């Protein structure tokens, strides 16, 4: 307690020198929390968007289906059992049939994926009801990215060629019923959503699907001959992207922290160099060398406590404001799942872990130069002689 009391007294007494260090450290503090809050916010929004728009609460895949291997699509389809149909009717599952296609927008050639989905489904946020409302039976909805890459607008017709169950090519014009906006590129880029019964008819795959998306109310029961893929598996790509981005932020945070810690280290070295007479006086008044080391270490480490308090003074209002307005990155075309506006998420765990990181590292860099005191001769220190 005494060390803490004396350390804070000395720290406040040091005036501008202390506050410069505290300001730099508080920047590091606030920016570390900000960066991590951004990534956590992105992560949470990304997960929610991916669940809402693409994967639901998990998916049952046809055993042949491999998301990363387009050659598996042709053979990845199977009829749905009565048990599955019953769940579909209850709104707990929705099947999706997938087939490869070639699009010819304005005479250009573009490859794409045709996905047949139940227009009445409510599991995914896709505006599939637009497929029913459209007058043309052969209608599709596409995302904004797809619309931009194909230069298609609502009401446009585009020639699409596909292969049916037997591998026979067929083609016809499909009308764009609506264009949706979502933050999940993989649910948008190259994807064209049609009514499931229509696509089944087009491909001669009546009653069949490639995968089945589960809703929140699905019991979780296994479906024979279909492989369940849970959220951990389906979100692993997003996790990997965020982790890789986090490494960049760790480097940035590390650099910020190093700058702040160097300032503390430098202050400690200077302090011990300049305050030898004071150190000698402490010893003469009855402190042991290790107690003096303790005072100087706590003094250096206390920078981080003051930085946390200062950071809270200007950081909390900024964080509250950012939480309200979010940070807009300009558009949904970054190629990764990221919301147009990210709302940072500051968890208690994040704040506590950052506090511990900064306090512990500030204390360590304060201790390193303070060890020199334990080797000082008090008689020399009292005279202020350099040792």
């Amino acid at each position, binding site marked *: 307690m005494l060390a803490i009391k004396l350390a804070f007294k000395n720290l406040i007494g040091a005036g501008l020198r202390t506050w410069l260090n505290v300001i730099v450290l508080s920047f590091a503090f606030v920016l570390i929390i900000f960066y991590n809050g951004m990534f956590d916010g992105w992560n949470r929004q990304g997960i929610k968007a991916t669940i809402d728009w693409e994967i639901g609460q998990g998916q049952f895949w046809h055993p042949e289906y491999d998301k990363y291997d387009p050659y598996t699509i042709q053979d990845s389809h199977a009829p749905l059992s009565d048990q599955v149909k019953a769940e579909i009717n209850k709104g707990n599952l929705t099947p999706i049939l997938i087939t490869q296609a070639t699009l010819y927008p304005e005479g250009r050639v573009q490859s794409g994926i045709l996905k047949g989905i139940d227009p009445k489904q409510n599991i995914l946020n896709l505006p599939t009801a637009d497929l029913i409302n459209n007058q043309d039976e052969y209608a599709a909805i596409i995302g904004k990215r797809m619309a931009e890459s194909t230069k298609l607008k609502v009401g446009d017709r585009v020639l699409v060629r596909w292969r049916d169950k037997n591998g026979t090519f067929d083609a016809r014009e499909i009308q764009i019923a609506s264009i949706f906006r979502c933050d999940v590129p993989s649910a948008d880029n190259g994807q064209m959503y049609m009514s499931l019964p229509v696509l089944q008819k087009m491909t001669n795959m009546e009653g069949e699907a490639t995968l089945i998306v589960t809703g929140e109310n699905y019991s979780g029961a296994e479906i024979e001959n279909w492989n369940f893929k849970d959220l951990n598996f389906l979100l692993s790509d997003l996790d990997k992207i965020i982790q890789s981005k986090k490494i960049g932020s760790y480097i940035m945070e590390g650099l910020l922290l190093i700058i702040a810690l160097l300032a503390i280290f430098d202050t400690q070295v200077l302090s011990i160099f300049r305050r030898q007479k004071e150190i000698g006086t402490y010893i003469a008044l*009855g402190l042991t*060398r290790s107690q003096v080391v303790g005072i100087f270490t706590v003094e250096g480490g206390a920078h981080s406590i003051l930085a946390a308090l200062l950071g809270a003074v200007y950081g909390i209002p900024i964080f509250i404001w950012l939480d309200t307005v979010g940070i807009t990155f300009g558009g949904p075309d970054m190629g990764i799942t990221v919301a147009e506006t990210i709302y940072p998420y500051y968890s208690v765990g994040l704040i506590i872990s950052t506090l511990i990181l900064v306090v512990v590292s500030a204390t360590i860099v304060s201790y390193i130069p303070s060890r020199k005191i334990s080797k000082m001769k008090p008689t020399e220190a009292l005279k202020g002689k350099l040792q």
Partner: protein
Amino acid sequence: MATIKINDLVKKFPVGKGHFTALNGINLNFDKGEFAGLVGPSGSGKTTLLNIIGSLDTPTTGSTIVLDKSISELSNKQAAKLRNKHIGFIFQTYNLLPVYTVFENVEFSLLLQKISAFERKKAVMMALEWVGLTDKAKSKPNMLSGGESQRVAIARSMVKKPEIVLADEPTANLDSKNSHHILQTMKKLNEELNVTFLFATHDEKVMQYLNRIVSLEDGKVVSDEIKT
């Protein structure tokens, strides 16, 4: 019973490949309540001897017994405890802690002794009263004159009511008027509280007040004169 007993004390400092002998075969005893001084030119070993008595340094050979404790056998912790409870220091350059007020400077030793805040305040105000500085309790050291600073240093050394006060050139930075004021204060405390005062000095003004003058030269005692 002697408060300080020094037998065959030798202190050598390494210099290059050899060594410099600062104290060479010192034998001295100081009794309780003495107002004594170690006098001699610079380099005669006064401060070195004072530092050893104050447990800030240790002898190379020989023994120094302070309040029945052998300085060379004390651990760091024991030496710190001895200084904190029983020995007061007064330095030539006052050595006040710059960020603390006068009150806090004087209070410092008591904080280490875990005395209650009420008792600390009482003791500090009494010590400041001894040196006539109660009105400066809230001042910072940089607001004090040299004489006032040294009086604060005296109050700081006396607040814990030590058995021994070691004063190293206490008047060296003071003018004549302040020097006499300081010395009168210390003499008064010596008489009233029966504290042993030991000075290291070559100031004639200090010598006027001393009851005993031990002269050192080249690390040896050349005379030991008791005034009657």
